[in-house]
């Protein structure tokens, strides 16, 4: 590890100034991913700006009836918060489906969104990786890619985003608040992460020096039926091979509101807008649900060793949507 300066400011302006948008500066939250990447040599910052001294660690109700989750709120705190559990259960479920209790006690909401892919080529500095070293190539494309993307990948990068939390945020129509040298802005959670395209080194739309300050959950999705389900190689403490977050509100036997997102399939949480379009206003029968999900996954481009993800994701999505539909009927 390279020696680095460490700063722990207590105010937002000081934090932004300390970072300065310099390439060698990194913000530090819980550090569960960043410190690991520093050990691996993937990250070699010269300055760490620790954000845990900032007042960003609270969950608050907003005046419009939504929730504001500070980016410094630890994953365990988020998942056990009564208002999260009762109003946005898919979020609590997704967080608890990720990592271990030890990691959830430390990892923050902002850091969860900003964590990097666990692609083994990205994490091994001796291997080519366009995300880590643009232009060096992608070792995974013809190499070991069983865990990699089947949707939205590019010739440059087939990595997946590892967050469970972000998949839940996508169906809750959450937004992410950013604070930088030019002020504050917010972006929809579903547009926070990028597709790799020709610039896989950029995971998100965050600009240099910007801080993720909060996640905002809107009142519109509060209390609606929603659910998270995740498939992985072992029963706990593993990243998703495929996961599904779904929200399904049914009135008079018809779908009034639906949101579906996949994790583990793409460089970002994959909001299934084609499937949603087909289901909106429809009677959510087994046939209708299956056709909608299959229409979404028709665009999948699996690689040599990860074609299994397509039926796995299809079955997960059908199961979760139909379970929500059954619950609405009973």
């Amino acid at each position, binding site marked *: 590890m390279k020696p680095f300066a460490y700063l722990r400011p207590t105010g937002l302006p000081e934090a932004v100034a300390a970072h300065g948008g310099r*390439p060698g*500066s990194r913000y530090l939250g819980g550090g569960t991913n960043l410190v690991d990447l520093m050990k691996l040599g993937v990250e070699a910052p010269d300055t760490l700006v620790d954000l845990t001294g900032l007042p960003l660690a609270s969950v608050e109700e907003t005046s419009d009836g939504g929730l504001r989750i500070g980016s410094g709120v630890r994953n365990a705190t988020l998942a056990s918060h009564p208002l999260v559990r009762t109003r946005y259960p898919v979020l609590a479920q997704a967080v*608890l*489906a990720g990592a271990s209790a030890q*990691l959830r006690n430390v990892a923050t909401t902002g850091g969860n969104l900003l964590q990097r892919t666990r692609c083994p080529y990205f994490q091994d500095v001796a291997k080519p990786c366009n995300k880590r070293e643009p232009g060096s190539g992608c070792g995974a494309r013809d190499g070991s890619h069983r865990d990699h993307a089947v949707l939205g990948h590019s010739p440059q990068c087939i990595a997946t985003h590892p967050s469970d939390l972000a998949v839940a945020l996508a169906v809750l129509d959450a937004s992410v608040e950013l604070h930088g040298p030019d002020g504050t802005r917010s972006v929809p959670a579903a547009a926070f992460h990028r597709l790799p395209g020709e610039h896989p080194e950029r995971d998100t739309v965050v600009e240099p020096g910007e801080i993720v300050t909060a996640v905002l959950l809107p009142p519109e999705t509060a209390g609606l039926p929603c659910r*998270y389900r995740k*498939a992985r*190689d072992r029963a706990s403490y593993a990243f998703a091979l495929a996961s599904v977050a779904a929200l399904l509100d049914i009135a008079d036997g018809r779908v009034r509101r639906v949101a579906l997102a996949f994790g583990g399939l793409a460089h970002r949480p994959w909001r299934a807008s084609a499937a949603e379009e087909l289901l909106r206003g429809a009677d959510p029968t087994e046939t209708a649900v299956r056709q909608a999900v299959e229409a979404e996954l028709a665009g999948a481009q699996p690689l040599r060793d990860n074609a299994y993800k397509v039926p796995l994701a299809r079955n997960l999505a059908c199961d979760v949507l139909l379970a929500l539909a059954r619950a609405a009927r009973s």
Partner: protein
Amino acid sequence: MAHPIERTRSRVRLQVNGERYEGELDHRVTLLDLLREHLGLTGAKKGCDHGQCGACTVLVDGRRANSCLLLAVAQDGADVTTVEGLGPAGPNPLQEAFLERDAFQCGYCTPGQLCSATGLLAEAAAAPGSADLSRAGIAEGMSGNLCRCGAYPRIVDAVRDVVAARENAAPGGAVRGGAVRGEAVHGEAVHGEAVHGEAVRGEVGA
């Protein structure tokens, strides 16, 4: 263009097992290395050093954490408990239960298992309505601690014994969900499922 690095060391103050520590540390020193290399507390183990095995688990301000992923400088002011601090006057009930149940083979992961189980029990006591201390709930709650010897069933037995003892000591009291599976937020949907039907434990890597 590089940012001038003014200081790469800082003064760090911690409470470790009830004793004050103060010293100047290189910012790169992890809490695990501080404990093992600077303070001689070798109970917390360096297994994977990447937050994947849980052998380095300690309690930071009462919450279990992987000490290998914490920079010591970022823990300034924290109260740390290692396995050495769990039963300073002899084995505590959890440690007795591990002995009684023979909940180890080689013992390398045991300090982390003990600290993790201590954290699990504290979390359950703090949120009695949502804690799941059934066998499955304990297995899930302890999934951040790998045991290459495969002592998992006995580790769960040992933790269950402590839960049962607490329930007997305080019938209808704070610790619930032992015999009955609570209405935990992590119901079936949360646990996720192994694609191959059964949990494959003891393999690091995800």
